């Protein structure tokens, strides 16, 4: 998913766009939508920061900053006491330790394996023919989560199908895969020295079943932002703000890109 946030003294636009392969088009798409929502022209934007995997495919961005730094900035603006951030996205998951100023001090990532990300739940939802959005609430109805032992998404999928035909109830299987994902994420995050407050963000944070499953692995309660999908973009905007303010005090003129959206041709 591609997201955009426009920040003034507060958020004046926030857009969550579609997924897709052509990242430059998606970037244009959400930028246009955000400008419309804010009711301002493109030229009015002082500074643009891009983040995430597609950050190099935002031609109009003035600077690229990693998601690690951006999530940190975004989350600490919402939760000043946050010290451990967990981000579970569609393609990857991360853990970030931050200090009291919101600067990352350590991080871990799992971007190598589908089974450690939201993708895992997507594949299983597909297999069981369940709406992805409903997976969380279904998992909460289970009293006896099934144990899914396999690490690999493909094997886990086979295991779920096998167990289903053995008569294991669907909600137990759904709870089981949530358990599995929570276990894997916590395994990764424990490589950091976990301190409270713990904040969960990303698409995974919208899944109430996952939040509950992950809570069982943490020693402290998990906090969730009101809109988990935009904390990265929010952080990027805050980064931009900090950069422009610093430049102002130092009397430096910042380099910025032309404020126009290129037409992207797909050959």
């Amino acid at each position, binding site marked *: 998913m591609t997201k955009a946030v426009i920040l003034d003294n507060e958020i004046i636009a926030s857009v969550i766009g579609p997924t897709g392969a052509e990242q430059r088009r998606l970037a244009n798409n959400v930028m246009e939508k955000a400008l419309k929502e804010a009711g301002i022209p493109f030229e009015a934007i002082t500074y643009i920061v891009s983040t995430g995997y597609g950050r190099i495919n935002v031609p109009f961005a003035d600077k690229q900053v990693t998601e690690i730094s951006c999530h940190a900035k975004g989350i600490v603006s919402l939760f000043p006491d946050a010290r451990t951030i967990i981000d579970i996205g569609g393609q990857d998951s991360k853990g970030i330790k931050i200090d009291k100023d919101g600067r990352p001090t350590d991080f871990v990532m799992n971007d190598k394996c589908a089974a450690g990300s939201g993708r895992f739940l997507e594949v299983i939802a597909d297999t069981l023919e369940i709406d992805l959005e409903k997976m969380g609430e279904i998992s909460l109805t289970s009293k006896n989560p099934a*144990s899914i*032992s*396999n*690490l690999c998404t493909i*094997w886990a999928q*086979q*295991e779920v199908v*096998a167990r289903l035909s053995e008569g294991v109830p669907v909600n137990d299987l759904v709870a089981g895969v949530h358990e599995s994902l929570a276990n894997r994420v916590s*395994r990764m995050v*424990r*490589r950091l020295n976990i301190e409270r407050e713990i904040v969960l963000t990303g698409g995974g944070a919208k899944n109430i079943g996952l939040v509950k499953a992950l809570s069982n692995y943490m020693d402290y309660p998990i906090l969730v932002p009101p809109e988990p999908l935009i904390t990265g973009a929010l952080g990027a905007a805050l980064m931009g703000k900090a950069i422009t303010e610093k430049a102002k005090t130092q009397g430096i003129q910042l380099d910025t890109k032309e404020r126009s959206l290129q037409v992207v041709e797909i050959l």
Partner: protein
Amino acid sequence: MSEEKKKHKKRRTATQAAASIGPMVKEFIAGTIRAKEEARQKIAFTFIVCHHEEILAALDVLPLWTENFAGICGAIRDAERFLQRAESLGLSRSLCTYALCGIGFDQWREEIGEMPPNPPWGGQVKPDFMVSTGQILCDPRAKWYQASQLYMPDVPIYNIDMPYPLFDPKRDHRDVWGYYHKYIVKELRGFVKFVEEQTGNKMDYDRLTELVDLSDRTWNLIDETYKLRASVPSVMGTGDAMNTMVPMCFRMASQEAYDFFFNLKKELEEKIAKKEGEVEDEKYRLMWGGGLPSWFALGDFNYFNSKGAVFPVETTYRMVAPLNEMDLPETKDPIERLAWKWLGYWTFWYDKARKRPGSEPDVERLINWIEEYKIDGIVMHEAFSCRTWHVGLIWQLNQLAKIYKPIPVLTLGKGGEKTVENRELPSLILESDIIDISTYSEVDTRNRIDAFIETLESVRQSKAV
């Protein structure tokens, strides 16, 4: 979760001797816990196959075999939390999972000041000292305790260097083994000195000589016992041997171990007399040609059994060789004797391998045992976290197929006439890990076994008489 652990069926062993091992191991662990509480005897973390049991016993040191403890965690399917603990310290899951389990457990115990909750079989106590030895076999056996020492900084380590000459088809290892022997002897003497310092005991060399002598006799006894498994039908399989390795590797130089094999030998002789094989209808005789087993999936041997397959022999944990077939230099010094045994064991197949074109010691051993135990096929297991025992297995099977084709098979020649062609043995490679169950798919493993059985059957059918 604990429901899941208890659900898997209890494994069936062919011999009563093997069935008695569980309680034996439980007693080891309990023994270390008692010893810790009583604080009379020193406890040492150590590894198997270092030819130092005699030294430890003579100086009244209680060994805690950390590979064994990790194996237990794996077998009862409670290793994951310790593996994860190790990962949280920065250790990669791709490293030896025995070591990850051990280091994870040690760090946890040291951090909370007591055993982790529900410790497997009572848990692994903090030792008084640790004895490493990587040899040229295994890096984790040199790095594991060093890593644990970070969390137990007051526990000293002695690292015994025990190399052996690698096989060179063009040279006689006896040209160099003199200086290997000299080095190993010095290392062992240094080890004796270290243990004397740690325990405050003085080595009694007469006692040591007695123990070395007992080991020698136990070695020969074990070899004789295992040779009985060549009978048709075969009376004991690798599933059992993964149990009987316990006295061989953890109780060497003890009367208990000698008595165990004495009784096992008797049991096997009785079964042979009654023609009581590992399975009722023996169809396929297989060799476990390499690889440590998956400790949580030993039940797979019963699955093989259910298809009529037996395992008369395995290379894994066959850590003794017939001493009377080695021409070791004579010596009255027990330390020198241990060092010669060491070199004799590791170079046992070198002469034979040199005589056969294209052969190599591990391959030579496979060929010799295929013939001795009348083997129809070979099974190997690749454990992903262990380079020590699992690198080279693919190559061994490859080389074996090149130089040894013992199965005459009827085929149709070009002109339609029946000809006899010699084929290599069928082989199967299983993949998972020693104790990390998340790498294991029972469905996949059993599929592979089924396919292999079909191959064995088709070879059986087309065998030329």
